[in-house]
């Protein structure tokens, strides 16, 4: 690959600023490299009240942490203060979704979920212990950076633009060495240790979950019972699961139908009438012909694939 000089790299692409990050050399890969981070003001299709103070980042390095981003803007890009960072594909609520109301697995919801109280309790009590000390992000991934206010966000983008223009030297992960958990074998060792949590902790988590789950189930049954008993505002009774005679499942109905048909068929044995025997024979002959044609096609194909059939 030809070395890419800075001159060839555009400063913007579409509406994104192209911010080059200098990556220090590593012992196993002793070469200084450049990573390109793309930034722009966030503009989702459905803006929220937070949108003005958000910046959308693309091609986030895989090992980025919130601290990385904070320090990048705080120390190297004008000191804009960050409220939170939401990485793409980060696991929402660590996979504990409440059994009834499924939590939307959308992005940007890592922090500050405002669900109803019931959900929140289940999620909080049911958490299984964390097994990683540091999350990773897929290569080329995105993140939404929420600044404390709109001016901070604007400042950050302005500083970034200036840094690109001045070809400022911005280094990735500067000064964070001891502030974040290390990568490499240490991380895997920690992971291994975290995978085996303390049994009492585990027991407590399971107990809490099951308790919440039972409560929830009960609440749901109650709600269903209520729905069954009371007409809604339009005067209809909702058909719900769990009544004395539950609504028939479609599959069950179909299966029953099949069975009935079969029974009807079995009533007259297949070889009772002469025409049946005759038709059966005809059918068999047809099957043979079909099988033969199929085989012929198979051999033709084999020949085409392997060339002629001859001993090796």
């Amino acid at each position, binding site marked *: 690959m030809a070395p890419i000089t800075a001159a060839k790299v555009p400063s913007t692409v579409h509406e994104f600023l192209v911010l080059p990050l200098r990556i220090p050399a590593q012992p196993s890969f002793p070469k200084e490299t450049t990573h390109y981070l793309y930034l722009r003001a966030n503009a989702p299709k459905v803006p929220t009240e937070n949108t003005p103070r958000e910046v959308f980042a693309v091609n986030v390095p895989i090992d980025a942490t919130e601290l990385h981003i904070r320090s990048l803007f705080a120390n190297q890009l004008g000191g804009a203060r960050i409220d939170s960072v939401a990485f793409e594909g980060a696991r929402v609520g660590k996979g504990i979704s409440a059994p009834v109301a499924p939590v939307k697995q959308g992005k940007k919801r890592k922090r500050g979920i405002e669900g109803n109280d019931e959900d929140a309790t289940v999620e909080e009590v049911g958490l299984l212990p964390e097994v990683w000390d540091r999350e990773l992000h897929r290569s080329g991934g995105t993140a939404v950076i929420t600044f404390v206010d709109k001016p901070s966000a604007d400042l950050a983008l302005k500083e970034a633009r200036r840094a690109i223009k001045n070809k400022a030297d911005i280094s990735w992960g500067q000064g964070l060495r001891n502030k974040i958990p290390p*990568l490499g074998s240490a991380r895997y060792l920690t992971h291994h240790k975290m995978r085996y949590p303390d049994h009492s902790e585990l027991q407590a988590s399971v107990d809490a*979950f099951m308790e919440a789950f039972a409560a929830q189930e009960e609440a749901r049954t109650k709600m269903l019972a209520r729905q069954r008993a009371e007409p809604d505002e339009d005067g209809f009774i909702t058909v719900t699961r769990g009544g004395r005679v539950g609504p028939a499942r479609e599959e069950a109905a179909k299966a029953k139908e099949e069975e009935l048909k079969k029974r009807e068929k079995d009533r007259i044995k297949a070889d009772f009438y002469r025409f049946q025997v005759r038709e059966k024979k005809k059918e068999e002959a047809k099957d043979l012909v079909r099988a033969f044609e199929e085989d012929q096609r198979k051999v033709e194909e084999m020949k085409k694939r392997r060339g002629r059939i*001859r001993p090796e």
Partner: protein
Amino acid sequence: MAPPASKKRKTDHVSSGDEDDEASFASFASDESGDQANDEVNGTRAEEMDVDERFGSGDEDEDDEEDESTEDQERGQTKAGAEKKDKSASKPTRPAKTSQPSISALANGSFKSNVFKLQVDELLGQIRPRHGKRETDAESALHTIKKSIEQIPPRGPFTIADAERDLIRDKVAIPFPNPRPPKDAKYKFAYAKPANVNVIGSYALKTASRSKEFLEIDMVVTMPGSLFEGKDYLNHRYFYKRAYYLACIAAGLKTSVGKEHCLRFKLFHDNPLKPVLVVRPIQKNLDETSEVPTPKWRINIIPCVAENQFPAEKLRPDRNCVRSQQHQDDGQSPTPFYNSSLRSEMLMTSYLKLLHGASKACESFVDACLLGATWLRQRGFQSSMDCGGFGSFEWNALMALCLQGGGPSGKPLLSEGYSSYQLFKATLQLLAVKDFTKQPLVFGEGNSGPKTTDSGVPIIWDAVRNHNLFFEVTPWAYKLLRQEARTTITALGDQVHDSFDSTFILRVLEPLYRYDCLLEIPAKSLSMQTGPRERLVQLYQVLRQGLGDRVSQINILRQPLDEWALGSSQPLAGAKGSITVGLMVNGDTARRTVDHGPSAENKAETAEFRKFWGEKAELRRFKDGSILESLVWSPPESGMSVLEQVIRYVLGHHFGLVTVDDITFFGGDFTKLLRGGSDRAGFEPFMAQYKKFENDIRDLHDLPLSIRHIMPADPQLRFASIKVPNHGKLAQKPVPADVTIQFEGSSRWPDDLVAIQRTKIAFLLKVNDLLQDTVDNVTTRIGLENEGQDVLNQAYLDVTYDSDATFRLRIYHDREQVLFERKLKDKTADPKSREIAATGLAKYKRDFVKNPARTQAIARLCTRYAALSGSIRLMKKWFASHLLSNHIADEVTELLVVRTFTQPWPWQVPSSVQTGFLRTLSWISRWDWRVDPLIVDLSASGELKQPQVQAITTNFEAWRKLDPAMNRVALFAASNVDFDGTTWTDGVPAKVVAGRMSALAKAACAEVSEKLLLLEPGALFSSPLEDFDLVLHLNPIFTGGKARKSMGNGSAFKNLELEALTDTDMIGHEPVRNFLNELEVLYGAALLLFYGGTERPVITGLWSPLTARRSWKVNLSYSTIPVKGKGEDGDVLADLNKDAILAEIARLGGDLVEKIEVHKH
């Protein structure tokens, strides 16, 4: 193309050809007017050639150059041939219409299946002899040679000295057989015009397969009876006179046709008594051959005599015809080989007539001959004695005789109405079932056949002709032939799998696939000059007695003798070349270290035993009180397998082959590659530990639910892990072995996937507590898995015994499947949760349903087949060494190897690790996974039936229709416990990786075929790292295995190391595996990674071609460099930022990665 018209013409052509053939044949066989016969032959040939040229097929002698059009033509021809047959069909059993026949054929069982029949037809079309340029050339040569032979002037009679002197002048040495005639021989040698010159053999009968390298034409020259005296059948006198006669023909032909043709002597069928003259075109210079290839044909000129020349009675196998000088009385031992060799000379024409009669009487005879010839060729059997002495002539003659008789009260064994396949199969059946060495097969009535001897020579007694048809068949080849016949019969009986390829297409004779063990002995050291045949028989007897039941087959192969020039004397047999002995071992007994001989009280047997074994025999007293002669061998750990020790000792004792150079031994080297031995025994301690674990769990009484099943689900628990678990005490950390446990059903389980997983944790906690209370020396921990996927199994229980065996227990709850399936069918659910349900269901089935089932099946197979465990482990090692183990799942590898054992055709079930491994490799190299599914019967007892195979095939076809580009499923591997076929191959390996697997296997097989005995087993296990774009060299501390010990500065980590080994907390800690998994998740779209476990301390990668430069967009799933486009609109393009990615990998790997190496391609 206008098919109808051309087809009609071809039909004419073929049928006319056949008619001519008949005419020519009759004349060939007639005794008088050979001249006229030949003229007629040439006449008809010319006519046929005209026809051929009209259709443009007359100019092909090189089959490889044939193009598509010829193929079409050929198809037309065979079709036409079939049509023609139909027209002339007189018997009702013959098929009637072109499209219907196969159906009826299948229905009445004359063919195995339609596909089989169609393939056989196709094959016959390919190997039926054709009349091309080389045939024309050869025939014109035949004509000239015949003319010139008839013009050779008579010579003699001379005494022996004069005869030799006379021919020396023509620079021809008489090819006298050994021993040479005495100098003072009274009889005279003379030459006179031959009584008859005729073409016989496969060429004349049109049974010569086209796939032969050379066109061989046998031409017999009948010597006039006037040259012989009544007693000439005695003491080689006939053969001396025959040699003189042959030399005269050679001398005569040398002057007439010696310019255009090359004349050499050769032994007919390697029979030392029968030299013949070979005529072939002279090799042109190299530059010329590039333009016009030399026609590949040769003509054997064979002298013979009339059938009534000597009394047949005198030449019976039980008579003596070579009188020794010492005593003249009648009590001399019979000379069956000599007698039959002479008798066969007299019967040349008679057998020609027999075969011709058979081909006229039975329509499919010629086709059956071609099938037989192909079958024999693929198994290395030929009429030549060095290749067993059973070739197509013997096959054809046997079939012809069986059409006439051989059955009870002289009824024919075969019917003329049989199809070619039925003839072929029935003949094989005859060979497989009957042992002609014990019970001779007699054809015809009259005098009874000779008694069998214990020499091991089979007897097919043709009473009409007073001849043993199998006199040249060697005992070892006969035994092998019978085994091959049995194998093929079994293969043909397999209703589920097509056995066409294994019967006719595969080359069964490749020695490394066929034999478990090979020896090479230089012919010189066997001192074979005196009697090569006798010496080989002796070698066979010694090996057979010495090895006993350790081997099932011993086959001796000798390099065929060369031809020699007219002027030089016959080369001494065994002066050069070598003898190869192939052994098929008996897996159960080959490693026995103590052999029991006869009891000490039995003096005669003891003496014999002592004589055979020499000083190796010891008298021993055994536990049961018996005192036996015995042999004690050192265990294989001493460096030499028991088999090798026995062979070296026996050959040293009886043949003086003492030095290591005398014998090249091959076999067993592959097993040395497996650490911990290839034996299943290495797993036993671990298995015992598992039993204890199972009992411990079952003994827990206070569980809320009772236990239904505890099932192992791990390669270590089915004798199939590369490394033997728990081998050598603390040499390695134990690898947790997966086990599933199922409880009795209960209505108290929650009806929700997430809650089920939590309940399972609660159960594990309970089991954990109970285990801690009841069992000593056990460490238990609960680990979490599948983080973030809360519908999947969340936890497992690790149970470690004495820090040397760990079992990983997961709970199997059958309700999960229903819940997953319901979710999958739920049309209101969002696509994402349905996808989760789909993957969850697949994983659930894999871990809890299929894995335990197959673990059970494979463990059972391993106890049934001794070599299976080793073969599986070696195969896994092979995949790992080529860095494919993260692509080809262990389970797929196991299926591949099991296939070699449960569908071993064309071989028998492998009885050694070496053959099990090599045959699997060979199958992989030929496996066209694009169109063929892998279907394996794990029950090995025919539980897999046709409808199930049909279901699997339908599954396979559905996948291929759904995903024709094979982006998701490349390999399809199903078994009788898994009809889905994609359980372990969904997503991985990618098509490119599957292609690499095939390529690597092909390369390995090429190496095997090329190197033969010189093969270095390790060479098959290495491939260059340069093939990859990048190589991550891992730090040996973390890769484990051997590398750690070889570390120079190991002492610095010694304490850490020991701590890591003894600490049960570290069990299951696999940083490299974690690292790899993360890399695959992070860079899956851009990078294809290869890893071979502990076999090689590297991870390698290839950049995906999808990461080529493209227009920039937000959602690219890899790190990019923006580049200004060349166009004026200034489009920004995106390049893969390889360096930044490598830097990220370096950061992520940290101290795991020592060095990242990048290869520029």
